[in-house]
């Protein structure tokens, strides 16, 4: 139990439409262990970004926390007010975003944005905070850190800006780093640099990383464990090697097969027909059933429950012992 740094339980986040709750993230549960990298993969619209924003209390207006709880240490995020969130953000849990330009303030210097973070969480002098900021810049591999302190975000390249974001996020030594598509906006050679940096910082600082991405290549490179999301739900949770060796859920299998593989030349790629259903118009039963090639009668009637197969947690009727059907009916 000690190694768990975060426990997400039955988290439901959504919007209200005429008093009807429409869930964007529909009751997901998972644990994050100390110093591990947990990948969360899924296509656009699967709710992975909403999930990550709710961990930081950054849900956009209109989207609300409908159910469930997130526990970090003895803190319960469920009942948090603005003030509570401010104490947690950056200190316990930090976040980096996809687009480093729009998440840095263009009218403040790099230095003042890092110093601001340190001063808001720790009672240190400005001078000390400044020195720590320079240390952070060195740590994330910024050349000539003293000068960069006085520069503005537009003077830096995309890769450098993402390094600055990481420096700000880690300035107060948080336990958890949430990285939402941190390399999607970057070129491959720069992406390789940033991923390398995140790995080496994790070795030094022992933080846990939640890495949200749509790129299975990045997952294979970085993660220890992986959660696959589809239409607001977790469909599969596995160790990274298991996931790549034998994906269980038909959706995961479909995703893997539709990726072009550099090692194998095929004339056509396999693809998953159809598109992700919109929140509010989810199909009955399994949400993936209408696009699933292995769907049978059961799938469109009842939503599947989690079963564990070879250490992989999977939400699919294919892996379910017959009896489970009865249990669901009796509930």
């Amino acid at each position, binding site marked *: 139990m000690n190694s768990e740094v975060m426990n997400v339980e039955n988290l439901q986040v959504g919007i209200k439409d005429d008093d009807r709750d429409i869930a964007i993230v529909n009751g997901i549960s998972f644990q994050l262990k100390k110093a591990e990298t947990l990948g969360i993969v899924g296509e656009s619209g699967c709710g992975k970004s909403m999930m990550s924003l709710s961990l930081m209390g950054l849900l956009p207006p209109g989207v609300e926390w409908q159910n469930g709880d997130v526990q970090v240490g003895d803190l319960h995020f469920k009942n948090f007010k603005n003030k509570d969130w401010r104490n947690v953000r950056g200190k316990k849990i930090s976040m980096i975003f996809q687009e480093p330009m729009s998440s840095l303030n263009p009218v403040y210097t790099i230095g003042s944005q890092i110093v601001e973070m340190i001063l808001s969480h720790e009672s240190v002098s400005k001078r000390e905070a400044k020195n720590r900021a320079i240390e952070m810049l060195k740590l994330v591999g910024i050349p000539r850190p003293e000068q960069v302190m006085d520069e503005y975000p537009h003077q830096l390249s995309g890769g450098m800006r993402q390094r600055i974001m990481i420096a700000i996020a880690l300035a107060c030594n948080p336990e958890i780093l949430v990285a939402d598509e941190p390399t999607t906006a970057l070129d*491959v050679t720069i992406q390789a640099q940033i991923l390398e940096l995140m790995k080496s910082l994790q070795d030094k600082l022992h933080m846990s990383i939640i890495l949200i991405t749509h790129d299975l290549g990045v997952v294979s490179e970085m993660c220890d464990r992986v959660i696959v999301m589809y239409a607001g739900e977790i469909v599969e949770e596995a160790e990274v090697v298991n996931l790549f060796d034998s994906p269980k859920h038909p959706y995961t299998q479909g995703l893997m097969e539709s990726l072009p593989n550099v090692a194998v030349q095929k004339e056509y790629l396999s*693809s998953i027909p159809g598109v992700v259903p919109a929140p509010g118009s989810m199909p009955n039963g399994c949400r993936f059933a209408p696009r699933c090639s292995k769907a049978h009668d059961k799938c469109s009637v009842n939503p599947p429950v989690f079963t564990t197969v070879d250490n992989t947690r999977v939400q699919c009727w294919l892996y379910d012992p017959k009896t489970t059907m009865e249990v669901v009916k009796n509930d």
Partner: protein
Amino acid sequence: MIKEDAILQVKNLKTYFPIKGGVFGKRTLQQVKAVDDISFEVRRGETFGIVGESGCGKSTVGRTILRLLEPTGGAVYFEGTDLATLDKNKMRLMRKDIQIVFQDPFASLNPRMRVFDIIEEPLINFGITSREEREKRVLEVADQVGLTVSQLKRLPHEFSGGQRQRIGIARALISKPKLIIADEPVSALDVSIQSQVLNLMRDLQKEFGLTYIFISHDLSVVKHFCDRIGVMYLGKMVEIADRDELYDNPNHPYSTALLSALPSAHPLQKKERIILKGDVPSPANPPSGCTFHPRCFACMEVCRTVKPVLLESENNHFVSCHLHQPKDVMNL
């Protein structure tokens, strides 16, 4: 280099953008060499891939071929006609044969036009006046890309990204072009949708004998889709080779690094990774000699001062690097 079956020959193409300044903003202070003296040819019926990182000029090449941007110098021969010197009117008619599909299916479709009108518009532009004829053709193309008749009455915002890209492809296809320039056509799409669109493009190529120029930054998509590939860096073509040759035996250090930066397909398959130092330099102020030398792991003295030339190193494998240049060229 010139072959019989070449549908398009690009020769010493240059596209420079002026940086204006001075008191009245009219003096040209500097030039950004977005595309700097590149040559290549595209063969009929093949897919020619152009890869490179952002800012390397790959999109500018595509747009300059179509004269959406004016070339600063050089020539583009399409079936023998030099596109770079055609007047505006003739060029407009030429675009019947050369069409483009853009990256962002959200920004490249007019949000106030119905899908039918979007697909039909090129026909009006190319002077097909008969309404019935146009309608027949739109329905035909819509069917080919997998759009239903009822969808044609809708507006672009009612479609998902993949569907919108199908509309973009239909619009490009309607004038029965010979060459389609696809500028990052699947970069904005999810993987499962990406494969649908790539499969569609391959089907259309087979059915109509299309030639593609496929511009992308995604090396695994390019490997899957292209027959020959050109690698660009800072406005220059640094390597051109057949697909398998390039991926098995990259000659240029930049291609080697790009390929090694690809995330591995399996977590246990750890690769020897070459991590390039620094960022792509600004094309307004490119480094001397070989523009790649400040980031190159195999940089030699000569690289700092002498510009390498794109030369054939092996059969059909062109590379612009001092490591692979004959000695006499280096002494020139």
